[in-house]
């Protein structure tokens, strides 16, 4: 399998995607932001479609769209009372835009499939390096701001009274989330981003109760899904995203059962 260069690229990209998704996922869960991950993935879809239309690499289009809109959407949906309406409006607009860009470009069907559901074959060595670079950027920022991000995410009330600048933290985090969504979409596709950005972290919290341990475990879960998914996809020629989805869901169900058993 590793004699094929696209598989080597996919494993390398998948590894870094798992690291970023597991890490950011823990904070997404703590900040109750799963909803925003969905919205950003739809915005990412529009961005990728725009890239296809404009003849750019899909990743660049996603980065452009998600980075520009993440802070705005995040601020608009702070109020829980109007969150659902905001999400519907934003999702509708960007899915519509995505469809428009795809229909305007010449190469519709296959590129739409790979944007929405991910593609392993398509990742070039150069894109792998771009993914690695973006992943390192996300990880370095998380490391530097770790204590403050952790405090603000897991106890916003306490963080505020202890002089942590919540506004700054949330803006930086939204940008990190936009980066992570764009990165993760390269393998699982924009429709299934939340598989890697929320499920591994949601599973991890049932097994351990410290933030650092949760991050490590979430990374392991994401990595297990990505590696095994790539391998099974290679064996069967079925979509990799399908396998990753099934594996992550199985891990999550196992976590729920584990939690149930421990509590009884």
């Amino acid at each position, binding site marked *: 399998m590793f004699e094929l260069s696209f598989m080597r690229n996919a494993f390398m990209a998948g590894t870094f995607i798992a690291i970023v998704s597991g890490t950011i996922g823990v904070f997404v869960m703590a900040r109750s932001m799963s909803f925003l991950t969905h919205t950003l993935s739809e915005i990412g879809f529009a961005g990728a479609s725009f890239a296809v239309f404009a003849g750019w690499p899909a990743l660049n289009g996603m980065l452009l769209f998600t980075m520009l809109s993440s802070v705005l959407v995040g601020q608009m949906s702070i109020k829980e009372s109007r969150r659902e309406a905001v999400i519907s409006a934003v999702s509708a607009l960007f899915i519509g835009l995505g469809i428009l860009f795809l229909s305007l470009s010449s190469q519709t069907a296959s590129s739409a499939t790979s944007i929405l559901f991910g593609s392993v074959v398509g990742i070039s060595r150069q894109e792998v390096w771009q993914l690695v670079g973006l992943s390192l950027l996300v990880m370095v920022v998380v490391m530097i701001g770790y204590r403050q991000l952790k405090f603000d995410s897991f106890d916003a009330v306490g963080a505020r009274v202890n002089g942590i600048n919540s506004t700054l933290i949330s803006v930086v985090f939204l940008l990190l989330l936009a980066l992570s969504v764009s990165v993760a979409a390269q393998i699982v596709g924009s429709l299934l981003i939340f598989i890697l950005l929320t499920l591994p972290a949601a599973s991890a919290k049932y097994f351990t*109760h*410290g933030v650092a341990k949760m991050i490590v475990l979430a990374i392991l879960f994401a990595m297990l899904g990505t590696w095994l998914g790539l391998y099974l996809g290679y064996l069967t020629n079925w979509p990799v995203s399908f396998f990753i989805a099934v594996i992550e869901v199985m891990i999550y169900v196992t976590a729920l059962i584990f939690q149930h058993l421990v509590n009884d």
Partner: protein
Amino acid sequence: MIISLITVKNLTLAYGDKNIVDDLSFSLAPGDFLVVIGDNGVGKTTLVRSLLGQLKPKKGVIEMPDKLKIGYVPQFRNLDEEYPLSIKDFVALNAGKSLRPWLNQKERQQLHHILELTDLTRIQDRLLGQASGGEKQRAYLAQALLGNPRLLILDESTASLDNEMKYELLDLVAKLQKQGLSVIFITHDWDLARSYGTRYLKMMPDSYQTGSIEEFRQGVKNV
């Protein structure tokens, strides 16, 4: 004469045009246990916000040392029973803003010391979401103490506790106060105020009273 830690002079606090606190003056010395008592809506939490620097006075001044470390245990925290962190990890959130992601030995020792002090060592690995009301309040207190404050502000921290737990929590706070910590305790509970306070500040819609706790006891008797 004792040098005071905080001196509030002619303080007026307002949201927009509406004055919440009007022309308030009081002082707090190191080691004081000041009970702030009064009905809902008289501005107790507003006063705290101004002490924390979150609300600028409309008039008057608050004199306190630069960079006075204040530990604040807020009234509300929405942590449900699914809250994923252990008591120890929750307390450790306030370990300081260092760029180093992990705790060094000194920080770990301090954490250990605070958990010991607040009687949480035995249950430090338990999930905070599943802890009892009293244990949660102790964890909130421990988190505030980890910042090594000189002044501790408790905002209705005993409101949700049963009687026994109230006294347990305040016994602990009183112990810290005897070691030199200054305390501001906001409460509705007159019994607790009488038992633990050294000074009081009674806030009413248009006026206030302040003085030693003996004067407060006297006042209550006269009513």
